[in-house]
């Protein structure tokens, strides 16, 4: 079977778009993908999708980048639907029917019509486009919930115990429809503006590459779900580092003592035994609005790693500091509510609500100074924006003097340190400061910096 002309170019530009999103694909895989295309043909688009995913991707997280990019390069169709949408009420009527029957094909077709009917804006060739937001605002599929529910109940499609799940299921179907609309709008825009640009800009990156400071709610929730597997991975890495660290150095005294039984010839070298000291960890987290996503994630990660350390203590601050270790331990069952609980149960603010590093660090050195000893590693998490108040460098110096190591993880881009009210350069002179903008960076840093 020969492949139609242009497929090779399309495939390579798909690979290019995926590479731009950080998916590492070699030439060998591209060749495999082409062979897969040849073997599968173009008859079934979903098979083609799975085939390309199998040959090009190497991990689970890459799939959510792949799917929208695939939709752009191998679109379902070209242009608008043949049939124009009759009107908003008619469309809502048919959508309700499709949601009731959970008919995916029909929902896909309705999404195409909806974007065509209600998503267009602008008239000049440079400024016009298609908006999923506008489509969904006009259509308001979420308001169909009650109607669909009553429809299903009256048809007897749901009864007994499982009936209480019905509303959530319908919500999921509506959510799926919204995703279809978004994909369709992206496809229409891509026809207008060129695929490559849209693939680069309009496809959200994988969750571990999203900036903490700009992550949306859904992305943060996804990150939270990733905490357990990530922690498990880091724990194996730490264990490996620990194993390696305990090999190699020879205990001369005991080797010589042992050699007496073999006439002074050291037959069996005795290795120095390490005392298994588990290090202690102290975390100081800025939980003020601007960086709370970052702190939350890091706190959960460290909590998940707690059995690697003899003691983990976590402190949260805005402009006053308080210990939240207990809240975190109980919080493993309910990570979403963590920040709300910290806010409700810990004293973090004094007279005002904005963050003040100087005051908080000073209070830590004064009240909880005993928490830091020669075996303790301290992590400070925050953007070091002090709202123009005194950064209180002596307090940091005092903490650094007592601790084994102090690291500062800053979720801001390095180029923005020191701009505005950021005291990052001052702190960076006293303690080691690392840029930590994404979950990927964080896990690399944690694996490298955590004491063994």
């Amino acid at each position, binding site marked *: 079977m020969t492949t139609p002309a242009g497929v090779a170019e399309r495939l390579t530009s798909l690979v290019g778009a995926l590479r731009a999103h950080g998916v*590492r694909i*070699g030439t*060998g*895989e591209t060749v*495999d993908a082409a*062979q*897969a295309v040849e*073997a*599968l043909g173009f008859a*079934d688009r*979903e*098979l083609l999708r*799975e*085939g390309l*995913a*199998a*040959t090009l*991707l*190497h*991990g*689970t997280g890459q*799939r959510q980048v792949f799917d929208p990019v695939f939709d752009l390069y191998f679109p379902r169709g070209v242009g608008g639907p043949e049939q124009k949408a009759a009107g908003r009420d008619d469309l809502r009527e048919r959508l309700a029917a499709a949601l009731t029957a959970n008919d995916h094909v029909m929902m896909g077709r309705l999404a195409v019509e909806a974007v065509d009917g209600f998503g267009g804006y602008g008239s000049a060739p440079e400024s016009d486009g298609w908006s999923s937001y506008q489509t969904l605002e006009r259509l308001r599929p979420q308001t169909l919930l009650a109607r669909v529910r009553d429809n299903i109940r009256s048809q007897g499609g749901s009864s*007994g*115990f*499982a009936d*209480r*799940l019905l509303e*959530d*299921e319908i919500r*999921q179907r509506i959510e799926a429809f919204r995703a279809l609309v978004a994909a369709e709008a992206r496809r229409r825009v891509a026809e207008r503006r060129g695929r490559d640009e849209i693939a680069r800009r309009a496809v959200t990156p994988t969750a571990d590459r999203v900036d903490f400071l700009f992550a949306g709610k859904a992305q943060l929730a996804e990150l*939270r*779900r990733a905490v*357990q*597997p990530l922690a*498990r*991975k880091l724990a*194996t890495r730490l264990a490996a580092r620990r194993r390696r660290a305990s090999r190699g150095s020879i205990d001369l005294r005991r080797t010589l003592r042992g050699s007496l039984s073999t006439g002074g010839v050291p037959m069996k070298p005795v290795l120095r035994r390490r005392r298994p000291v588990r290090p202690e960890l102290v975390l100081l987290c800025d939980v003020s609005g601007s960086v709370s996503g970052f702190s939350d994630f890091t706190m959960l990660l460290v909590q998940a790693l707690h059995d690697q350390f003899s003691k983990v203590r976590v402190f949260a601050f805005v402009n006053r500091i308080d210990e939240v270790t207990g809240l975190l331990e109980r919080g*493993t*069952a*309910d*990570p*979403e509510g963590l920040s709300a609980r910290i806010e409700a149960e810990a004293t973090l603010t004094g007279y005002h609500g904005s963050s003040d590093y100087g005051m908080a660090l000073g209070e830590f050195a004064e009240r909880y100074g005993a928490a830091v000893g020669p075996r303790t590693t301290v992590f400070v998490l925050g953007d070091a924006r002090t709202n123009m108040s005194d950064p209180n460098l002596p307090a940091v110096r005092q903490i650094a003097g007592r601790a084994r190591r102090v690291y500062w993880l800053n979720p801001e881009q390095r180029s923005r340190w020191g701009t505005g009210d950021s005291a990052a350069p001052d702190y960076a002179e006293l303690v080691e400061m690392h840029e930590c903008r994404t979950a990927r960076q964080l896990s690399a840093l944690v694996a490298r910096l955590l004491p063994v």
Partner: protein
Amino acid sequence: MFTSVDDVSARLAETGYLASPAVATTVFLADRLGKPLLVEGPAGVGKTELAKAVAEVAGARLVRLQCYEGVDESRALYEWNHAKQLLRISAGRDETWDETRTDIFSEEFLLTRPLLTAIRGDDPKVLLIDETDKADVEVEGLLLEVLSDFQVTVPELGTIAATRRPFVVLTSNASRELSEALRRRCLFLHIGFPDEELERRIVRLKVPGLDEALARSVVRVVGALRAMDLRKLPSVAETIDWARTLLALGADTLDETVVQASLGVLLKHQDDVLKASAKLDLDTLGAL
């Protein structure tokens, strides 16, 4: 081995393995491109079962290498049978050392382990490398030669290349990130939780005594549990266990008491049970 993707689904279904389109497509490609298949996914979705089903369909022998921390060359590839070699030397007839040496390093004294077994011989084989992530990084290096060229080098015998390539399946629970080098030699397949319709068919197939309406409710409840933020999400294996439990309890429909009593089959942590009970509006006080 297979003629089309539909052929894969149909023939896997005959052995009792219902494959999603993604699974069928990837198995088809793995066969067609002659590449190993790396399967990832949560526990209990049928990763190992897939390899067994493929072996059954192809009428091939399943060779299994179970990985664990500390698995090494002598467990995975081959080993010389030292005891037998010593016997051979001590029972030596009058012959020169050179003759003895060539003799004791011959096939007779070679103990083949799964990887070598899989590439020797002409009969069709399916090689299953289970829980690859549990093995140490060094073993991955060992796998690279086997998986890309289907050959093994034994210093005393030379390179042994496969006359007939086995169908290779590697599974991983992602407890450790596998190396990029290994990943790029494989086709990647993520088996997630099946969609509602497929899972219902699986339940009906594995638990034939369960009636249609109850199976539907079972799958819906499991789906709702998976949408929650639990420590351990119930997998297909748990769904089937639950369906069997309900059958054994003689339940015709789901109601609060039945669900409450059997939730432990689905969820393995007390935290999860409490959380799910609260979200499903169960009477939690009764259970405590």
